[in-house]
């Protein structure tokens, strides 16, 4: 018996609802249309890839154009006071295009971003004027109000890749589960 011919609900929920559920919790779209095995496999794999990305590159690989740490906000306000133009929404997204992919993994990306910008460990890694951060530990120095530190080099790239690909795969699952919902559970 397969997940396509068992546990099919008599009336399937509307495709937009399935798509929304699939975005909120990866794999939930398949569960809603009765394909529990497929939903669990897809959901667990996507979330595992997303968490692996955060683990590899640190939580700041999720870098939204709109969610800022207090230090980033202060820096932006200084730039704007000095006459720098504020980028519009499209320009802001184009500066960090990988966030589009990451956001497709669901609200977990937004939560991770918020945690990253507010996570403080005062006194653990403190920047000073004579600290040029030339050590090769792959992590930038942080200070008060900056949130968790950004990583850099390969680990940052890999963390971004993992999280963005997790989101892109979730887009695939969102489209497929919504289509199946509109086609009585079949492709």
């Amino acid at each position, binding site marked *: 018996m*397969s997940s396509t011919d068992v546990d099919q609900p008599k009336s399937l929920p509307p495709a937009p609802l399935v798509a929304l559920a699939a975005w909120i919790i990866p794999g939930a779209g398949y569960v809603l249309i009765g394909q529990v095995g*497929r939903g669990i496999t897809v959901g667990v794999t996507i979330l595992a890839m997303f968490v692996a990305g955060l683990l590899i590159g640190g939580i700041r690989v999720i870098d939204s154009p709109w969610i800022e740490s207090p230090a980033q906000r202060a820096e932006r306000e200084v730039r704007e006071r000095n006459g720098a133009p504020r980028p519009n929404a499209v320009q802001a997204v184009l500066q960090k295009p990988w966030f589009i992919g990451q956001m497709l993994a669901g609200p977990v990306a937004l939560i991770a971003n918020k945690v990253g910008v507010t996570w403080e460990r005062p006194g653990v890694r403190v920047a000073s004027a004579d600290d040029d951060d030339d050590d090769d530990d792959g992590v930038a120095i942080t200070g008060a109000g900056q949130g968790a530190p950004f990583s850099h080099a390969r*680990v940052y790239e890999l963390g971004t890749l*993992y999280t963005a690909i997790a989101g892109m795969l979730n887009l695939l699952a969102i489209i497929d589960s919504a289509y199946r919902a509109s086609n009585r559970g079949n492709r």
Partner: protein
Amino acid sequence: MTFPVAYTPFWNPLPVWDYWYTLLIPLSLGISIVYKSVKCHHMRQVPREAAVIFLTILIGMTAAAAALMGITRLLEWR
């Protein structure tokens, strides 16, 4: 001044500087599983199909890396 601290998951990046390329293996595995879970008609087909595409990706990436390394070496030699 920077104080050295112990590794903290999610705060510090994973210390994989010398073997970062091995992390492409679980990435390929994840892509294979999700892609075939979406694509296959029956879930029982997924393990075999995912294994085939996973090996194909690995062999393809290895061949591409070897070819690029060969070209680079050739250009350096000339």
